[in-house]
């Protein structure tokens, strides 16, 4: 990620009132994680899998604070069970910020399933999302998705692709 994109993510999270970020590191966002760790206004929690991160983010919501789950889009598949139970069962929302592995332009064979499954899985979970490919749209997309989640009490997602993560 370019520094201006990292800065836009951090600005967006803060504008959205997010003070806790759960993440499982990935390569496309590798510049983002140290920036989040270093920010004094954001508490980061590194997790062992994204489902666990979803559960923690749900608990943060129940405390009255706002959280984000940051991950590669492959993590969406790992967190489906937790997201379905919390979201469809109880209405406990999780806002997700994902790197979009496997988008057109992908040149790693192992990343192809991530691109093929991401949008159908989000649709199966009835989760609205926005794919952002230009850095100047990042900040507002994060604010919009987080606002929606805290209005609908349901999950939402922003997937970053294109020039942002190349």
């Amino acid at each position, binding site marked *: 990620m370019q520094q201006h994109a990292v800065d836009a993510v951090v600005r967006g999270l803060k504008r959205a009132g997010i003070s806790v970020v759960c993440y499982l590191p990935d390569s496309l966002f590798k510049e983002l994680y140290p920036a989040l760790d270093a920010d004094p206004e954001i508490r980061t929690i590194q997790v*062992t899998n994204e489902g666990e991160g979803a559960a923690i983010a749900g608990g943060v919501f129940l405390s009255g604070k706002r959280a984000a789950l940051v991950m590669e889009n492959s993590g969406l598949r790992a967190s489906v069970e937790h997201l379905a139970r919390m979201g469809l069962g109880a209405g406990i929302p999780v806002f997700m910020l994902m790197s979009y592995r496997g988008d057109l332009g992908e040149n790693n064979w192992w990343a192809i399933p991530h691109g093929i499954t991401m949008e159908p899985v989000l649709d199966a979970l009835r989760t609205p999302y926005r794919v952002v490919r230009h850095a100047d749209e990042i900040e507002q997309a994060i604010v919009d998705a987080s606002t929606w989640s805290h209005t609908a009490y349901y999950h939402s997602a922003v997937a970053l692709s294109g020039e942002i993560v190349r």
Partner: protein
Amino acid sequence: MTTTPDARPTTAFEKTPHATISRYSAMEALGRRLDDALVILSLGGAVDEWYNAAPHMREASLFQQQLGCVTGEALGLAVGLPHRRIVSLDTDGGLLFNLGILATVGNEQPANLFIVVWDNEQYQSIGGPATHTASGRVDLAAIARGCGVEHAYTVDTLEAFDEHCAAGLAADVPYLVVVKTDGILQPGIKRKHSDGREDKYIFVRHVEETEGIVIMGPSEHN
């Protein structure tokens, strides 16, 4: 087929002999020590038992039916409300579903999180097939200690459990107790008949009232 005492049961639903404590009695003991704590609990028979064993904690308890989510949600709550005692009532099946949460708890070291694992060595809500703890080889407390949760213990008497409740609820580090329970559902108790969505609103309104905050507030334009 093996004949050693610690072997997995030879039939799927046969009960192993490691567990001795009545879960309901243990819940009553824990409930007597709770006042302003917040509780998140797992699924199965423990839901109805906690609903009856600690009626004064009903609004302060989030009744979930979420295998693998419970201690994660409790950690999130503990991070969000660091001044409040948070109790996770997890189970052997639920914790085994996501052992990674122990590593995260170990690294995060929440000062206000008390984790109880009701270990009846079976998936009780579906009729009792054994979990991995039934073999006698899998030691959840040892796994927790290996993950950095230094205060992690297994108890097989009610007295020992009560002592660990006192210590765990006063600790300033994460504290975990695995309770070997007998798997006998308390007879004659009232079923909780609300669903997870209603339970969430009851819990959230309790947190709002006791914390003086708004979590699920009014719309901008009513």
